């Protein structure tokens, strides 16, 4: 796929004796959403860290937008258009929602008032303008997750890595947040999302990838993937010994 936005070739990462990511390859097209699922400890977040530059892979190559970014640092990648959220949301303390969003907006130095205007626009687009002046300490978890996404979006990413933005939300809230993801895609962003709520991921994903023990178990159409016996086994446990 020559015109894919992100191309990951056989990346690995070891920590001591543990192989966190063991040879994962993936192609992500423009405006595509890929859902990543897998049991706890499957290496999903480590995989994200390799994409966002928090970790540098031991082997393999990451190409983004036609450029090799394998060894670059997170800030550089973010500036190139790789945005991400964190599994444990950590909004900046002592700062309001708008200010949180202004942090990435200020990277290109548009001036504080312009950044504030842009932040308000973005919050409006995402339907949380009314929270702009709220200190982040006073937000509910669902609101925090939205702020986290807004913050990532403010880097104006071409690729957004969403790490469990739905985790910890109740079903009402999940239904609230999901359309968010498609809205973002419709703005021209490609998305990789790690999720545990499979039904939710399936709803928005174009394709799905399943990781287990750091390796790709299955990748493809969501309906097909979910019926793959290997996937069911990874999730629900095996009936028989392998």
């Amino acid at each position, binding site marked *: 796929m020559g015109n894919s936005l992100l191309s990951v070739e056989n990346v690995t990462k070891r920590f001591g004796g543990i192989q966190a990511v063991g040879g994962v390859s993936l192609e992500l097209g423009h405006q595509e959403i890929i859902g990543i699922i897998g049991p706890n400890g499957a290496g999903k977040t480590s995989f994200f860290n390799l994409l966002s530059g928090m970790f540098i892979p031991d082997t393999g190559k990451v190409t983004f937008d036609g450029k090799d970014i394998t060894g670059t640092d997170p800030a550089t990648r973010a500036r190139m258009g790789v945005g991400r959220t964190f599994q444990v949301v950590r909004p900046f303390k*002592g*700062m*309001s929602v*708008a*200010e949180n969003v202004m942090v990435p907006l200020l990277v290109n130095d548009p001036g504080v008032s312009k950044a504030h205007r842009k932040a308000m626009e973005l919050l409006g687009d995402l339907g949380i303008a009314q929270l702009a*002046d709220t*200190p982040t300490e006073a937000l509910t978890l669902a609101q925090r997750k939205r702020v986290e996404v807004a913050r990532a979006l403010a880097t104006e990413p071409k690729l957004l890595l969403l790490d469990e933005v739905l985790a910890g939300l109740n079903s009402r809230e999940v239904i609230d947040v999901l359309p968010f993801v498609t809205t973002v895609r419709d703005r021209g962003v490609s998305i990789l999302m790690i999720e545990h709520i499979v039904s939710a991921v399936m709803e928005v994903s174009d394709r799905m990838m399943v990781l287990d023990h750091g390796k790709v178990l299955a990748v493809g159409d969501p309906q097909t993937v979910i019926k793959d016996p290997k996937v069911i086994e990874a999730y629900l446990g095996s009936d028989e010994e392998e």
Partner: protein
Amino acid sequence: MSPTERGFNRRSFLRYSGAGLLALAAAPALASCASRGTDATTLRLGAMYPVSGTNALLGEESWRGVQIATDLRNAGGGVAGKQIEMVFADVPDVNTAASEARRLVFNKNIKLGFGTYSSSLALAATEVFARTGNAYVELGAVSEAVTTRGYDKVFRLNPTAADMTGLHMDFIQNYLAGALGKPVKDLRVMMLHEDSSYGQSIVSLAKAAADKIGLQHFEAEPYSAKSTDLSSTVLRMKSQEPDIVLAVSYAADAVLLGRQIRDNNVKLGAFVGTGGGHSLASFQKALGDAADGVFDVDFTQIHVNRDFTPGIEDFISEYHKRWNAEPASGHSLSNFTGAQMLFDILETTGGNDDPEVFAAAARKYHREAGTSAAGWGYELDAQNQNQQGSMYVMQWSGSKLETVYPPEAAVRAPKLITPFGL
């Protein structure tokens, strides 16, 4: 209200004004204890000594001498009929010294200040007094810089670092060389000095003084007074095998140095301490018999030719009465003597502490050597430095630090004993 402006909302104004009010309340509270300075019945003088921080030990000892002088004088009717009142300031560091000098000058209306024990503190305090047109009398600091800055109302009554190094060399030339049986030019002399303003003031003059008497092997080496271990210094000393060690130490380091010389079995021809730590009674206490034979160049100590130091008995008995102890070092005595001279000068002005009047009187005042409790005389040179204050050489013998040189002040002749019990 956006948190952006948290610093500047209504509540923060409350905070600002609350704090402002506190400051407004605190500053006048400080300012309100203002006093009128010297008046018809009371002579108010500013006394500045470090009684906390690094210099607390000898600062306190110096201040004791002044307290005794003041009480004795007041009991005897004061100065020209006025009672003396000391306005005291603790000056642990130079910024505080400058700051407290301003308090004395501006808030307490002090025209005449004195102190200060340490040279860097003296420099800071005198700058303020001099620049505000007031007078300052130094009674303890030895750095030449105190009187060489051209201030016409800064006086010093005590002898200086130059007197110390001069006496070092004098003593080497006239006694030690002979006692050790080596010509001066062959003597190996090592000066160890702590690195405070005291030690550095002295060492800066030592090299020239050594050249003057033809001392060809002279080394100076600094160490930190705060060090808890002087092994390195002692080992370097051992490797250089000096005949004579001149040590300029503060308090704890003097003991440490002595003990480590003894422990490392460094045999020296003679060891000459220089004021500070080597004069302290606790130096002898800490070393015991090992202190025997250690020489010490310093201000006058109490075991001195009493004919040469009239008034010293009063001082000693008064000290005993107040603190139930022997004076810890000669610092109290020298400050006692300095304060007495200061009072005598003020007597001649009729208790007038106006800086101009005092300065004129101070320049006119005269006193022969051997007429004060410390044996000092009084005669100012062009830089307002007393020429008649002198240093003496003492030697430890048992628990007594006996004056041994020059002969007119001595209670006995010096004895060459290998120091530190070796």
